């Protein structure tokens, strides 16, 4: 009774702490990358002109916060005009505004060279060539807000990176549709593209925007407009990439401290337990599993493959495939951080936590977003948690680590699961409602660090970064700790009746041995006490298949897809591990050896 009260008190204190601290979330800074444009330096490059730059101007980025510009010898640096964008307007600036960079600038800079008269297509007549170069850098680089400058007189031809996935072309402040655009890519190869009715260059790989490219357009025979465009970006395993890991390393280090601390605190209290002397014979360390686990079942191997693949997909695919966020209207409800722009589809948590922002976008996007989201919510359900969520993957890794180390888990009883419920509701309220009182859930989101840092993205971490530490410590001792109170998971679980994947139970076959309950990371007790209904899936069920794996009864539990069982429990599979000739040390001969004076192993 006493223990229970302490538990309830802790949960309520945690709830209160969360609710109060959420308001000051931005003030708890775990790590700040100083990414405002004013933190950048502006200098001339000493490197050679890159292949993709057809223009006489270009930009590159240094490994830290350096924007470097280059000018060919043929043009005079004096005649260079510079333009920048602030929150309100686009305006011409001077070189002194960039040294240091003015604080109100968004980090979108265009440099325009004076008109040159050259015969660039070798047809014998000289053309007027308008060269411009554009750089996007700093915290706003990958934002969704429109970024065209709309300065028709100074910059008639303009390309900009919009919607996180397309290059839009403006000419004379109008969207340029059905026009031929010549693009020079990083290998120096020129390809012709045609723009569509939105002015989007169709078929242009997004890889170009990160490597830099030149877009060329000639409205008539005698005029050529060219713009070099490079968005701030870095290669994997560059200095920038490793710097991005720093906050993750800090969090991991603190988590390890936390794990060790919890271990010793628990040891201290466990010493009062009379059983302690016995179970503490097993010291932590990597020792193998005594041959009691028959390796992994096929199902759990498939699950791990899915988890790993989706982690890679969520974190790296945009850059690896060079397509960026290609399908950003497709909203998938998982906890992969949308601050990582390399995810192929949109992780819906950003718009779910910023609902007002969702409705500022065009109606087509909103409809597509809600449609795909509801398909995943209703038909997919929590199988996404078990198979796709990158955060689930991280938690499963921590659990595997603990098992490998042979450290006792913290036993979560179903009562503890009930006690923890208020915390879940607090997270749900914060998740959906915090934005309406002016908050930003991303500041308290404990899941931001993994996909951003590991993907090499510089993202600042506020209170959420600190909350990651208890999350990791928790998931080390309690399997899928976060999932117990995950607001997104709750949304996914609500439509359990319509899910394509369902967990079914044959109540006659069940012997109530409780193995499923002990194996369940979500501690769903009804799965073994239920004796009437065949639909045993609850809001919490992740469909991880652990219960089926540990169930020794034939067909007692099954995972069904559209009503057809795809994975069933079976006595034969369960018992398979005992099939081979027992490789155990001869227990009864051990006695003999000791009696005759030989040393016991």
């Amino acid at each position, binding site marked *: 009774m006493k223990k229970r009260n302490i538990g309830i008190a802790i949960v309520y204190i945690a709830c209160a702490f969360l609710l109060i601290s959420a308001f000051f979330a931005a003030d708890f800074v775990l790590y700040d990358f100083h990414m405002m444009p004013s933190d950048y330096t502006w200098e001339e490059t000493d490197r050679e002109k890159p292949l993709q730059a057809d223009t006489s101007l270009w930009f590159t980025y240094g490994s830290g916060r350096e924007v470097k510009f280059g000018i060919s010898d043929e043009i005079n640096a004096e005649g260079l005009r510079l333009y920048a964008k602030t929150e309100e307007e686009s305006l011409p600036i001077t070189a002194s505004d960039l040294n240091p960079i003015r604080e109100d600038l968004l980090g979108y800079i265009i440099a325009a060279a004076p008109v040159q008269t050259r015969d660039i297509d070798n047809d014998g007549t000289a053309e007027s060539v308008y060269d411009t170069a554009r750089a996007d850098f700093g915290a706003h680089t990958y934002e969704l807000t429109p970024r065209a400058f709309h300065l028709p007189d100074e910059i008639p031809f303009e390309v900009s990176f919009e919607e996180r996935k397309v290059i839009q072309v403006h000419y004379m402040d109008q969207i340029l549709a059905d026009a031929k655009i010549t693009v020079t890519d990083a290998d120096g190869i020129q390809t012709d593209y045609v723009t569509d009715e939105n002015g989007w260059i169709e078929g242009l790989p997004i890889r170009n925007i990160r490597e830099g490219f030149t877009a060329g357009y000639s409205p008539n025979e005698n005029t050529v407009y060219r713009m070099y465009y490079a968005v701030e970006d870095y290669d994997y395993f560059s200095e920038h990439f490793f710097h991005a890991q720093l906050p993750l390393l800090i969090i991991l280090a603190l988590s390890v401290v936390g794990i060790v601390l919890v271990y010793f605190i628990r040891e201290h209290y466990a010493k009062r337990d009379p059983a302690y002397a016995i179970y503490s014979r097993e010291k932590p360390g990597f020792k193998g599993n005594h041959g009691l686990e028959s390796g992994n079942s096929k199902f759990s191997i498939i699950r791990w493959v899915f988890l790993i693949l989706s982690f890679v997909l969520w974190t790296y695919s945009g850059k690896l495939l060079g397509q960026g966020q290609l399908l950003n209207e497709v909203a998938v409800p998982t906890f992969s951080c949308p601050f990582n722009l390399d995810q192929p589809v949109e992780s819906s948590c950003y718009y779910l936590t910023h609902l007002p922002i969702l409705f500022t976008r065009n109606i087509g996007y909103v409809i597509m977003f809600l449609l795909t989201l509801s398909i995943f919510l209703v038909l997919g359900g929590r199988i996404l948690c078990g198979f796709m969520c990158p955060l689930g993957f991280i938690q499963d890794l921590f659990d595997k680590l603990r098992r490998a180390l042979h450290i006792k888990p913290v036993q979560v009883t179903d009562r503890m699961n009930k006690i923890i419920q208020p915390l879940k509701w607090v997270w749900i309220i914060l998740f959906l409602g915090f934005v309406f009182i002016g908050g930003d859930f991303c500041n308290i989101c404990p899941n931001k660090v993994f996909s951003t840092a590991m993907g090499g993205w510089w993202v600042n971490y506020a209170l959420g970064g600190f909350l990651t530490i208890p999350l990791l410590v928790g998931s080390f001792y309690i399997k899928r700790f976060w999932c117990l109170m995950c607001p997104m998971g709750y949304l996914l679980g609500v439509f359990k009746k319509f899910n394509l994947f369902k967990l079914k139970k044959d109540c006659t076959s069940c*012997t109530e041995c*409780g193995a499923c309950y002990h194996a369940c990371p979500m501690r769903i007790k009804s799965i073994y006490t239920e004796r009437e209904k065949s639909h045993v899936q609850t809001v919490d069920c992740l469909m991880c298949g652990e219960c089926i794996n540990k169930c020794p009864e034939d067909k007692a539990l099954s995972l069904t897809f559209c009503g057809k069982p795809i994975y069933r429990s079976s006595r034969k599979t369960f018992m398979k591990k005992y099939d081979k000739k027992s490789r155990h040390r001869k227990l009864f001969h051990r006695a003999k050896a000791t009696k005759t004076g030989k040393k016991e192993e």
Partner: protein
Amino acid sequence: MDRQVQTNSRQRELFIKKSTRVAASYLNRVKSLPDLPDAAVPFLDALENTYIKLQDIAKPENVKTIGTLCVMVPAELICAAGAMPVRLCSGSYTAYSIGDDHIPRDACPLVKSIMGFAQIKALPVFDNCSLLITPITCDCKKKLAGVINSVKRTAAIHIPPLKKEDADTEVYVRELYRLIPVLEKETGHEITPGSLADAIRMVGRAQYEMSRFLQYRKYDPALLYGTQVMAIMNAYAYMPVNVWTEQMHLLNSELEARLKRKDFVGKQKQPRILVTGSPITFPNIKLPLLIEEMGGILAADETCMGERGLSDPVSVIEPSFDGMMRAIASRYTKPCTCPVFVDNRQRVFRLKQMIRDHKIQGVVYHVLRGCLVYDYEYQIMEEEMGKLDIPIIRVESDYNEEDVEQLRIRIEAFIELIKLKDHAKKKSERK
């Protein structure tokens, strides 16, 4: 004093003479059932060694044996401590009559039989075990644990009568932890995570063979007689686990061959009967014998000497020491359908499952005289079987041969009833 010793020794001689005779006669009846598989013979030999030749269990030298009662004492722990478990629940009529002097009249005969063996000291299996572990299950076992302590050193372990809440399982986990030092002191070996895992694997292999064996019992017509099965399961109590497993492996192969040859022992329309209720232990196997001698086939049993003891495997979730202990504790209480648990609805489901799997046509509900907990559950079973339209008969018996004729008449009538019912069903189907 001399006279006392003399009477005791005379009583002992008499006892041995009588008890071996009864055991031999029952064993012969089992053997005389046709088509005994060759691989089943060593199991019957084990019973013969124990009850007729009066030998100790065939174990390596210097290995201690530890006696257990009921199905709730984890064999894994005993094996992990380097000792050998022997299950001492007995069905000896002769021992029962001796125990009758020490135990109240209304107590169940099984307990009296155990007490009788403890007093007479004639069975080496019984006498050589260095410790008796008694789970506190029903009232008779509870008091036995206290009384028998004066003749045999006993460790009692508490079985929580409730098992739905996590706290209840926790109680049993603590109880097992408490048992560990007792076992270690007895055997002189430490239970390590490694040895516990080895023991779980060893018993797991027995359970694996058992699960294969149970599959062969599902065939209709039957592959072997249920009475033989009861004897084989009973032999588990008096054989080293690994020896039993190896022999079971051979038996399974033989049954597989039988199945391929379609060499069934039963006939097509033989009434398939399930026995449930109070433990049926050798030599008290008059009930299965009667059923099969009267033309029925004992297709399944839901008793603690038979299927219940070995059919549920340990499902280790965490391969750590504590994880193994919890898995063992779960396995020995949660799926157990012993009526000593307060809420035992799961027994109904277990029976339903067995009726479905083994195509059972009739249930014989065995109640030993004085076995209250099983008698309590007859009502609900009758109700449930009524819903399923399965005939059920309550058979009360005692540890003597006086009620055999009466039982014979009742069981014969029951089997005729099933045959008639089957016949009527077929007729109506034809129409």
